[in-house]
């Protein structure tokens, strides 16, 4: 077990370095440079561009730029090209904004899709099953921002829910409870929107897993020995159907960074996705690279966590 862990962690670290090299090369080799963001500006003289290029190390060979980036990242001195602010603290600040949205969305997705999926599997072929199937496919097929815009129109008129930003303007000095309530209130719509597609995908998956498990012999045995239907479904079938979902937990993590660009853009939510979007617009290479690096690290970490969880949950699997 420990040897397995040490070996995978070493492998993953190597993989992470390769990924950072590749993404560094891709971003630097693609046309378009930070010094060319504003080519029409008459105040930009050739000398200024040369100065910018020099201070960003853009004239150095590629491998040297990579070394610079990695060194600055590790010593915590990495500065944004755009405004010279340190990258890591800014990402941390945005991360704290993204986290509640991510947690809330995940919570909604996982609490809503299990009952829906299980019911659909139990009542297979019924009107309920067929209509949830169709709704799920519709939610998967609709462009996210199209649905969000349509729902915003209705929700704002009927429920007067706020749909922009983290908190109401001018409540910075209100007492703690009030501020917390205000933030929660702002969280409702973005997280429900972001959760809808997730619910559709996950509930389909729950349904097919349950269908598979319900046909197993041990479920028939449980029924035959006269257990209540409740016990059979939740005690025997569901527990076994849950296994693959442990893997899904691992794949959730990277969604923290890249999964929410569209929704953060719609709701003006200053999170990581929006940070990345702004960085891309301004060719802010250190920021883009660091975000990419963190997303890859989160993915690898997520896979590792799901491997370990799988071994913990399923006694048939042993990590060698």
């Amino acid at each position, binding site marked *: 077990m420990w040897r397995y862990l040490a070996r995978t962690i070493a492998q993953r670290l190597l*993989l992470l370095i*390769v*990924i950072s090299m*590749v*993404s560094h090369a*891709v*971003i630097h080799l*693609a*046309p*378009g440079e930070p010094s060319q963001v504003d080519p029409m500006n008459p105040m930009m003289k050739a000398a200024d561009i040369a100065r910018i290029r020099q201070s960003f190390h853009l004239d150095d060979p590629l491998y040297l730029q990579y070394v610079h980036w990695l060194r600055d990242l590790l010593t915590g001195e990495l500065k944004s090209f755009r405004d010279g602010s340190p990258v890591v603290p800014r990402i941390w600040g945005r991360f704290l904004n993204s986290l509640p949205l991510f947690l809330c969305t995940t919570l909604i997705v996982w609490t809503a899709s299990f009952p829906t999926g299980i019911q659909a599997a139990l009542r*297979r*072929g019924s009107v309920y099953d*067929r*209509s949830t*199937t*169709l709704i799920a*496919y*519709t939610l*998967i*097929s*609709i*462009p*996210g*921002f*199209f649905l969000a*815009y*349509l729902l915003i*129109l209705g929700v704002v008129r009927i429920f007067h829910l706020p749909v922009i930003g983290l908190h109401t303007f001018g409540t910075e000095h209100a007492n703690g409870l009030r501020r917390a309530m205000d933030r929660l209130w702002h969280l409702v719509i973005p997280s429900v929107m972001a959760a809808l597609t997730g619910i559709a995908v996950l509930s389909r998956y729950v349904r097919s897993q349950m269908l598979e498990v319900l046909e197993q012999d041990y479920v028939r045995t449980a029924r035959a020995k006269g257990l209540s239907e409740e016990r059979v479904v939740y005690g025997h079938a569901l527990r076994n159907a849950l296994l693959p979902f442990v893997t899904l937990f691992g794949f959730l993590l*990277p969604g923290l*960074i*890249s*999964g929410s*660009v*569209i929704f953060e*853009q719609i709701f003006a939510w200053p999170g990581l996705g929006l940070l*990345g*979007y702004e960085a*891309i*617009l301004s*060719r802010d290479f250190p920021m*883009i690279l660091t*975000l*990419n690096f963190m*997303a*890859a690290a989160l*993915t*690898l970490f997520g896979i590792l966590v799901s491997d370990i969880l799988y071994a913990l949950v399923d006694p048939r699997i042993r990590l060698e």
Partner: protein
Amino acid sequence: MSIPVSPRPESLLGASAEVEALGLAETPFQQVWRTFRKDRLAMASLFVLAALFAFALVGKLLTEWWVVFDPATVRLPDKLLPPLSAPSSHLSKALLPPFHLYPLGTDELGRNVLARMLQGAFVSLSVGLVAVSISMAIGIFVGGLAGFYGQRRVLFVSIDTWLMRFTDVVLCFPTFFLILTVVALLPPSIYNIMIVIGITSWMGTARFVRAEFLALREQDFVIAAKALGFSESRIIFRHMVPNAMAPVLVSATIDVARAILTESALSFLGFGVRPPFATWGNILADGRTYIFDAPWLFVIPGSAILVVVLAFNLVGEGLRDAMNPKLRKRAS
């Protein structure tokens, strides 16, 4: 939508007499088709797709080759007219729309929305299809190489390990973020979008093909082909690739849907296909500005994308069910 929903296909296959009567004479294609045909939802979607292809071809014909609908004609007096309205009397004769009618209204420049949708159908569809062809080509190549020549070693490590670790590397990139980065950095062009979507979505195909190849290698017919001394390329392309296509085809159908959605998301963020081309995605993204004044500019392309993507997804699911040997009772 009121498409009738059928019971799952496997429940219909209980009629074993029918299955037996059909016997061994069926080709695999016929077997799949027989199951697929019974999934009414998937069949309805197939008709939707056929209609879409027809719409796209007619659109290409009528907007570019024999210009009846000109999507680029600007008619400022007629801007933001609702669907089914007639042109105003201020227009010169040359600018009048066909049949003196705007069936889907006009946009903020007075362009005929139907003409733009007709042009956009072909572009949107080709973005999806070209992107998926690229990803399938890369996926089959990488997966096939890893599955067939996997045991050979290059630099002490087997080809299989190299290729699959490489696939893992690409899988670790946050896909949409990567697409966004590359599309933002590259010069704006519709071909770049197709290529980038293609390059970032081949990993699933590669894994499917590799798994199928590993299973097929041990099958009797492949061993027989080897014993007969067929060339490797013949074994791969005539014997193994066709047998590995089932999961690839399913994921390709669903990937077309995903590519169309990705294109519209890119348009929303301002990195989509640029103005001379209209796509459904950028008509929708531009329409959101007028959501209060001219809701049809938003609702029409949005619903069109929804219906088409839904149809691709349902056909994909129908194919998956029809090709799944667990669900399909073998005729033999």
